[in-house]
């Protein structure tokens, strides 16, 4: 299990060095979007409209934070379940998106698209919203403000701790992790 420190936007060299199970600290700007924002992004793509941010090389974080207390950048901000975004994800990857942060396994179609588009899926710790908030140092709503918690935010992260869940070769920690843990037990 290696540890990497990476900076957005992501390029091929960075992504190809990441293996399922590695620990990664993300630095730089990433974009928040969950259910409702994905629906709007898809509609804009369908209509041929310009998207609120260029997808090329970027990371989307599946999160709907709690309101920021006074004097704070953001509220609690842990990942939501990624599989709800499985349907729109291959389209976004085709359009240049390189990374996603969420929690839980992805569909076969998403894994195939991750391989094809040389991208990566990270998992953040579900339920560690207060801990993750401390690595967010800027936050600005850049699209769909009416969606409130579900609006698209451009956030700057400093050493945002994640784990490579599905790497660019399709290795999947959600399958590999439990299997090798059980094999390890059987070999004891």
């Amino acid at each position, binding site marked *: 299990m290696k540890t990497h420190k990476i900076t957005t936007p992501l390029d091929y060299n960075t992504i190809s060095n990441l293996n399922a199970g590695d620990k990664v600290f993300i630095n730089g700007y990433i974009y928040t979007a969950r259910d409702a924002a994905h629906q709007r992004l898809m509609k804009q793509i369908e209509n041929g409209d310009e998207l609120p941010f260029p997808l090329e090389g970027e990371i989307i974080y599946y999160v709907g934070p709690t309101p920021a207390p006074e004097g704070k950048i953001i509220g*609690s901000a842990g990942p939501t379940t990624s599989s709800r975004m499985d349907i729109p994800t291959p389209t976004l990857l085709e359009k240049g998106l390189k990374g996603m942060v969420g929690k839980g396994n992805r569909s076969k179609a998403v894994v195939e698209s991750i391989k094809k588009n040389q991208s990566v899926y990270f*998992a953040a710790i*579900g339920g560690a919203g207060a801990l993750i*908030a401390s690595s967010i140092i800027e936050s600005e709503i850049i699209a769909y403000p009416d969606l409130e918690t579900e609006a698209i935010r451009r956030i700057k992260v400093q050493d945002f701790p994640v784990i490579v869940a599905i790497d660019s070769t399709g290795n999947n920690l959600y399958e590999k992790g439990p299997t090798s843990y059980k094999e390890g037990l059987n070999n004891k």
Partner: protein
Amino acid sequence: MKKIDCEKIIQEVKKLCIHMNLYMEDDLKNVLEQSIKEEDSQLGKEILKDLIINQEIAEKEGLPLCQDTGMVVAFVEMGQEVQILNGGLTEAINEGVKRGYADGLLRKSVVGCPIRRNNTGDNTPVVVHYDIVRGNELKIKLAAKGFGSENMSSIKMLKPFEGLEGVKNFVLDTIKKAGGNCCPPIIVGVGIGGTFDKSAKIAKKALLRRLGEKNQDEFISSMEEELLKEINQLGIGPQGFGGKTTALAVHIETFPTHIAGLPVAVNINCHSSRHGEIIF
């Protein structure tokens, strides 16, 4: 007759909404800390430690433990010698939640129409279950139910012939399918018996039980122990990355059922099990 003013109920519900979303209860903290010692996956151990750090930060910074501050479910036990003054009880509970979620800067996660999906803006309505009991006490149990785990819950009408094995297999299958989606380590609430709806209701109620408390029926409590052991042999582990700690507890509640039926409901709660009780 005990008389309780609505405003008092509103204030207490508001306080509890904020408290349960910001502070982890000791029973849960103790079980989590114990699991760190027992977990033999290195990554799993680190994740469990991060969950302890998370609750420390939440407490220090005044932030919710999790950004999904849930949909509120209330179990009300209303003594029949209690009179509510100056308004309706259901309205008071909803008003308390509305104020708690506004003042506590909690996330408003409820949409009005499940198809058209417009956010109600104040995290109401609350799902309220009532029991009318003897006496002059009013007890309100509240849970802030996150949907990462709620979405992985399941219900099945088994055949009586499938019996104990059938129930166990269904519980294990549900946990397997949930994998890392439900934020393991989890608490598993199982409702067995009653009708279709009753089994789901008692499964939810089982999640509100204090960790470490067993079902009083020895046969059922040994089932709780066996299931916990079997779930933790699945290898799913913290966040689904492999390990021993998949569930922290299994709570089973039962109710008599029909000669033709064996309803089983499995309600999953994440490690951020937020609930509390108000007694008037």
